């Protein structure tokens, strides 16, 4: 009887003691219950842990921009950390560490994907002026964003459109490294290219690329003058042909053209002009003595013109010299131009005064009404033979005067 009860009792005892043994061995445990490892921006983000610890641990977490610490709401053995507000819908990798104390912690991570829909396009275009031709290009870079400002994952498509004259072209580009970009190559023709972009149902604003003419090619010039006399009064006008680049685009208005004039003595005269609709005009006054000019135009460092030769004939045929002894005045008279008109006022008259073949002095006067006069009474003081040599417009005459 006793034996009969002893065995079950013993078994019970063993079972009971093993049960308490198990209970004693049991240690505190903490486990992540949330199984989701990927969230989408805009989702509620909650991490739930089951914990048998009495203490309430801080959850450290860190996303792309910063890190913080969060406390849970506790329900029985469940700790729930709500990170929705703190993470502020920013995409990227988030790592966390549940901190019990300095030694005891568990860690993990999850990923927040950007929202699938593109709702904003930020576009950058540069440079916005390029040269006509083949090599140059402008680049458009797009930053696509979802409604929370997150860049989309790689391989998100964007469409670039550009219009030039009658041609509208479209190109599809996939994003990589957080951006989409496309190069818009220049055309042979100068003008404007309008560029725009879109992704899904979002559109960017319109951008303009100005294609400016390339560097000027060589050109020709011609000279225009009213007559070929060297009267020192009229203008000679140089004008260029319509200056174009190698692709036949008229160069930009305001292109600076220098006209270089080389005369008989190899001196250089210069005039200049800027282009309007491809043509530059420069003027210069006629010489006042017979000349031969060689004219050539340059756009410095870029282009040059042909050479044009111009000859200027003497305008004055004859003049007379008269010396008035009473007033010691030398008068130059009869300065007539090519049609026997008075030569224009202001023509230069030069006098070289010699005494007994020795140079004493030189004088200059200008004409008025076809005449000029030199007053010499304070020059002719001593006795001797004086020579007056007068030249006008390259024509020279001499007279002698004996002073007693």
């Amino acid at each position, binding site marked *: 009887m006793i034996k009969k009860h002893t065995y079950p009792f013993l078994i019970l005892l063993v079972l009971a003691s093993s049960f308490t043994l198990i209970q004693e061995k049991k240690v505190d445990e903490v486990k992540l219950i949330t199984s989701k490892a990927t969230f989408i921006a805009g989702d509620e983000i909650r991490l739930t842990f089951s914990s048998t610890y009495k203490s309430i641990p*801080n959850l*450290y977490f*860190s*996303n*792309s*921009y*910063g*890190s*913080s*610490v*969060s406390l849970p709401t506790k329900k029985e053995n469940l700790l729930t950390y709500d990170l929705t*507000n*703190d993470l*502020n819908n*920013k*995409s*990227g*990798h*988030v*790592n966390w*560490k549940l*901190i019990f104390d*300095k030694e005891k*912690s568990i*860690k993990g*991570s999850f990923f927040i994907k950007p929202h699938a829909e593109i709702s904003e396009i930020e576009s*950058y275009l*540069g*440079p916005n002026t390029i040269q006509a031709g083949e090599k140059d*290009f*402008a*680049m458009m*870079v797009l*930053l696509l964003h979802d409604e929370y*400002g997150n*860049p989309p994952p790689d391989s998100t498509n964007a469409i670039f459109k550009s219009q030039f004259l009658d041609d509208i072209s479209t190109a599809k580009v996939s994003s990589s*490294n*957080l*951006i989409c*970009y496309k*190069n818009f190559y220049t055309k042979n023709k100068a003008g404007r290219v309008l560029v725009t972009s879109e992704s899904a149902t979002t559109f960017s604003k319109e951008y303009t690329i100005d294609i400016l003419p390339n560097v000027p090619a060589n050109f020709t010039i011609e000279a225009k003058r009213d007559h070929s006399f060297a009267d020192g009064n009229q203008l000679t006008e140089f004008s260029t042909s319509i200056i174009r680049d190698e692709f036949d685009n008229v160069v930009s208005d305001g292109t600076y053209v220098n006209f270089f004039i080389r005369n008989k003595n190899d001196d250089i005269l210069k005039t200049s002009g800027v282009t309007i609709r491809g043509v530059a005009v420069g003027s210069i006054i006629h010489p006042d003595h017979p000349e031969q000019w060689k004219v050539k135009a340059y756009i410095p460092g870029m282009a040059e013109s042909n050479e044009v030769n111009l000859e200027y004939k003497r305008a004055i045929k004859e003049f007379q010299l008269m010396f008035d002894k009473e007033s010691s005045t030398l008068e130059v008279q009869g300065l007539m131009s090519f049609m026997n008109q008075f030569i224009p006022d202001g023509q230069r008259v030069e006098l070289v005064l010699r005494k007994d073949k020795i140079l004493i002095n030189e004088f200059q006067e200008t004409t008025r009404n076809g005449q000029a006069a030199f007053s010499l009474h304070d020059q002719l003081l001593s006795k001797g033979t004086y020579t007056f040599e007068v030249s006008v417009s390259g024509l020279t005459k001499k007279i002698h005067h004996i002073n007693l």
Partner: protein
Amino acid sequence: MINLNKNIIRGLLILTFIVINAFLIFGIGSVFEYLNTGADRSSMLHLELQSASNYTPSMSWSNEINKGRVIDKQSLQTIEKDYLKAWYVKHIAYKNNNPLGIEDYYTESARKNIFNFIETNENKNVSIEATTLAHNPTLEFFSEDGQLAVLTDSDVSEYKKVYKNDELINEFYETSTYKIVLLLEDGFWRIRHLLKTETVIEDTIQNTNQIALNEYQIKGINYYPQATPWNTFGEEFDPLIIAKDFDIIKKAKLNTIRIFVQYNDFGKGEVEPEKIEKLKVLLDLAQSKELKVIVTLFDFYGDYSVLDWTINLKHLETIVSSFKDHEAILAWDVKNEPDLDFESRSKSAVMAWLNAMIEGIKKIDNKHAVTIGWAKHKNAYLLKEKTDLISFHYYEDIDALEDVYLNMRKELVDKPILLGEFGYSSYGGFWKPFAGSKNKQLKFHKKVQNILKKNKIHFMSWTLYDYKNVPKDVVGNLPWRRSLQKKFGFVDVNGKPKPSFEYISY
């Protein structure tokens, strides 16, 4: 009698007059001094952000060719400079929960995210002290007009300390990879997007590569030239004197010296080439005399703050990489007696700093041992997995030394142990009569050498010379402490060996 009284009263009056005046002048003086204190005027200009070298993590650019325009060196340097400043201002902002400077380096839409975190952390009374130690950027894209750049910064090594309610709750390393879009705005490269693509948290950096001393028995001495104690590499650096001293050390049957590299004196982050040259001269001399050298870094440094780390590491990298192949080097001593700063700078800050610096050394030099010159033997177990040589200083009861050593020996098993400093001042003058004498010093060293010989302990005594002057930064201003410190040498101020010289080694 009356006269005498009068004179006494007169004297008293004059005395009080003088005393009152003295007080008055002192009072006016302190008011004046008080009015002259306060913020430095230069701080009004925010110049601190402009200075070049307050944030210098290692930057290794990959050579990959980017997809956009070919970048020139100068533009890349400008991007690097502004990118690092963006990190720096972010660290400061999160440390103080103050957005100062963020606007300069983050675009309008990016800075909002940082402001959000600052606000959250301020509300929760959380602050994050962090620094990055290494960046490995690749330029992925540079736009044709030079206004936009994309970087991938991989394996950014970041150390973080998390505080809540001003209490450190955790510290760890994070290794992350970021993609960054930068825009050139108003002459600043500003971060437009910052996207973390990967992170791994590590509690500490693991590097357990151990360097053995290979049966080398250290018999050494701590060395300063006699004329320039605590300033070996100053203006009066003289190779002739050092060569002579090394001869003395060699003849005394010693084989190792311990020298000190002062952090500020060497130029902090921008180590002066002239100092490196002097250190090289010293090491070359040591090698020619067949002496090994333990170089103690960061002498007179005591900040340890996380934002100082990158500068510390740059300092250390310049010195260690210059001499990692030098035959004379025996070991790098990270810092002299850092445990003395446990109280003033907090143990955790000092330990984290030591850890980072050991990593810094081991990353460059995997041939030479690393040690820390602990002031107290009970601290010598700290970081024992990371150092190759356990070094402690002993100025306590000499009769206990053997037990202390044997205990450590038992605890540390095979690890080499170095008694890095010990000594006895022979000073027994005005400030501390009967404290020490040359004879007592002799007896001390005789006793120590016996223990050392018996147990084959690596040792380095303090120090070769008596000094005429001890800088007040070393032991403070108190004359009795300074006098004591002057007389630890085996050779007196006149260059004559003291009796203890006989027991400089065994």
